[in-house]
């Protein structure tokens, strides 16, 4: 069995995946509410038996999205909402309710508060948020109370997942959950009106990681090259 070849192959294919994650993070450095994705390499140990040492293969088998707050950028639009602290907005989509921190909302002609692609924002009780079409002056307080022309209309809810494991990332900086989310703890996060939360990707860290991945990959290729030469030499010497 060509253990050396297989071990470095596992490493190489894992590095290509990590490169994909880095490329995706950099591509999304300007995506509102985006959370950077990081892959984690885990060991897969195989015992060889017969007094030999066991071999270990490293493959990316886990990932996580670090919950680091992205910078808040002022936009001045009344329905641009950022969350400072913990919690997510809950939106209704055809694939079920999802959580997001991308808070750029618009009003539909009927007064619904929607994401730019038309998914309704839900309030603290899970019902869509409505604003009368002729309301002129919309204010959102830090606890999510939405008022128009001085009258309170709705309470935008902050939510959090029950199970932090079974979260699936979806397009639009959204997270799909296996179980219903629950309201976030009182005071865990506050809503800031007229601001958007920028992507939490740090370009410097990503580029540094990218160089690391690239060099590790080249190292692995060099190793495969040497292994190839070694086997050729073996065949040359003993194959006559």
């Amino acid at each position: 069995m060509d253990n050396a070849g297989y071990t470095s192959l596992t490493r190489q294919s894992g590095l290509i995946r990590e490169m994909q994650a880095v490329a995706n993070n950099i591509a999304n450095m300007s995506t509102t509410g985006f959370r950077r994705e990081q892959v984690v390499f885990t060991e897969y140990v195989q015992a060889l038996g017969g007094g030999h040492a066991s071999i270990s293969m490293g493959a990316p088998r886990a990932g996580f999205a670090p919950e680091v707050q992205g910078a808040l950028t002022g936009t001045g639009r009344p329905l641009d909402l950022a969350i400072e602290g913990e919690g997510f907005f809950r939106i209704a989509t055809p694939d079920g309710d999802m959580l997001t921190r991308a808070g750029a909302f618009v009003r539909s002609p009927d007064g619904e508060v929607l994401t730019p692609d038309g998914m309704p924002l839900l309030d603290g009780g899970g019902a869509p948020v409505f604003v009368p079409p002729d309301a002129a002056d919309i204010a959102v307080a830090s606890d999510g109370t939405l008022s128009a022309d001085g009258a309170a209309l709705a309470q935008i809810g902050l939510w959090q997942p029950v199970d932090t494991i079974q979260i699936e990332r979806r397009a639009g900086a959204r997270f799909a959950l296996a179980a219903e989310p629950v309201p976030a703890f009182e005071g865990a996060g506050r809503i800031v009106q007229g601001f958007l939360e920028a992507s939490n990707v740090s370009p410097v860290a990503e580029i540094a990681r990218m160089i690391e991945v690239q060099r590790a990959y080249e190292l692995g290729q060099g190793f495969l090259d040497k292994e190839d030469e070694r086997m050729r030499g073996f065949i040359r010497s003993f194959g006559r």
Partner: protein
Amino acid sequence: MKALQIAATGMKAQQVRVEVISNNLANMSTTGYNARRAEFSDLHYQQIARAGTVNTTDGAVLPAGVQLGLGVRSAAVTVALQQGSLRETGGDLDLAIEGGGYLEVQMPSGISAYTRDGGLQRSPDGQIVTADGLALVPDITIPGDARSIAINAQGEVYGYFDDQVEAELLGRITLSGFANSSGLEAIGSNLFLETAASGPPFIADPGTDGVGTLRQGYLEESSVDAVREVTELIEAQRGYELNAKVITAADQMLGATTQIR
């Protein structure tokens, strides 16, 4: 190697951002112009290893999955509807709207368009028209012998004549409001058209229903903040370069692969 395509989507997104910024900067002196901003959204994710998958015979689940994204796309270009600062011009038909409403004008095709550019003119036959010659709705005609005209905050147009002391009410300018003004379709020349997203206009007298009031002798300046745009431009340019670097790195990795015999 998907990193190549992913970085390409990133470069494209940053390019859209530069285009939006350059249009904003080009319009930093356009009356009534509102700055646009490009919004981005991530693309679909490949679920390489699903979180929560049962991993061992004793029922332990994978604590976190591997989800690899496929890049970015531009989701929307939003308009930040902000009141621009008012510039005094002294022109008797220069109107600034203080509030969220629009002036309605009649297009040559007969449909209505909406504008916040209140630099109005008088046509040869006394009609109030925009700088492009589109008539205001409702139609107001100023008699040729009017000495001066006055427009108050509520949109009433008064004419002063040599042969009478009292001012004569010539008509009333109304304003149109929209449920979702950022859903209007911009067609250039400071004009907007109603869309399904903006909803139908509600027509109101200035000073009612939140459409705002008029101010004669002023024009609304562009709300583009040059400092902010230039900062964004730097970010967009560096973002573009970072994505290009990813392409180079991915290419070199591919190069290393092809060197193995």
